[in-house]
């Protein structure tokens, strides 16, 4: 597809979509949203980019291998943070008793490891969307 209007609008709007997705991921423990919603928005922005600029140019920004690695790293990050609770003598995903700093309630840096876990889920979901799209679209 080679349309000037679509390309220009995409170039303008993609940073704002990604900023919104990162905002939703980072505020997952305070406001509606979280890892899944924000990751879906982040993935949709990359899908929009590869729809309007073509798969080759999008692969140059974020290749298939890189998104696969990010996908695996997200779930490994989640499991590692959950296992910290077991090693500190609690259950899987123990939060306060495992020694995570709780911070001030209502602030962005609070709630121990929930923000970190949401970050991992966001990376996982976003790269899953991109990998799904690439797998379906790619010519074989």
């Amino acid at each position: 597809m080679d349309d000037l209007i679509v390309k220009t609008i995409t170039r303008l709007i993609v940073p704002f979509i990604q900023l919104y997705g990162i905002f939703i991921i980072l505020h997952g423990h305070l406001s509606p949203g979280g890892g899944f919603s924000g990751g879906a928005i982040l993935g949709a922005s990359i899908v929009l980019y590869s729809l309007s600029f073509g798969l080759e140019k999008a692969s140059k920004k974020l290749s298939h291998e890189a998104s696969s690695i990010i996908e695996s790293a997200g779930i490994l990050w989640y499991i590692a943070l959950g296992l910290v609770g077991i090693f500190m003598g609690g259950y899987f995903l123990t939060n306060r008793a495992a020694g995570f700093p709780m911070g001030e309630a209502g602030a962005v840096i609070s709630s121990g490891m929930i923000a970190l876990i949401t970050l991992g889920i966001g990376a996982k979901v976003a790269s899953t969307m991109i990998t799904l799209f690439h797998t379906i679209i790619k010519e074989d």
Partner: protein
Amino acid sequence: MMQLLNVILVIFLVVCAIAVERTKDLLGAVIIFGSYSLIMAVLWLLLRAPDIALTEAAIGAGVTTILFIGVISRTRRME
């Protein structure tokens, strides 16, 4: 006023759901399904579930539609 809006949205939702099943053109059915997801997102918001509304708008109206269109471009358009 809010109740009237709710009733209109639900009626539109049912019409969209029946139209998706009736349409022979698969691309048109996918577009109607996207509008169904958008109405469903507004309904989730009215039901005070903004979390689900956000996810529905991103997944249902965005990613699912794109994936369906990708599949249609690899196969036939007419049923």
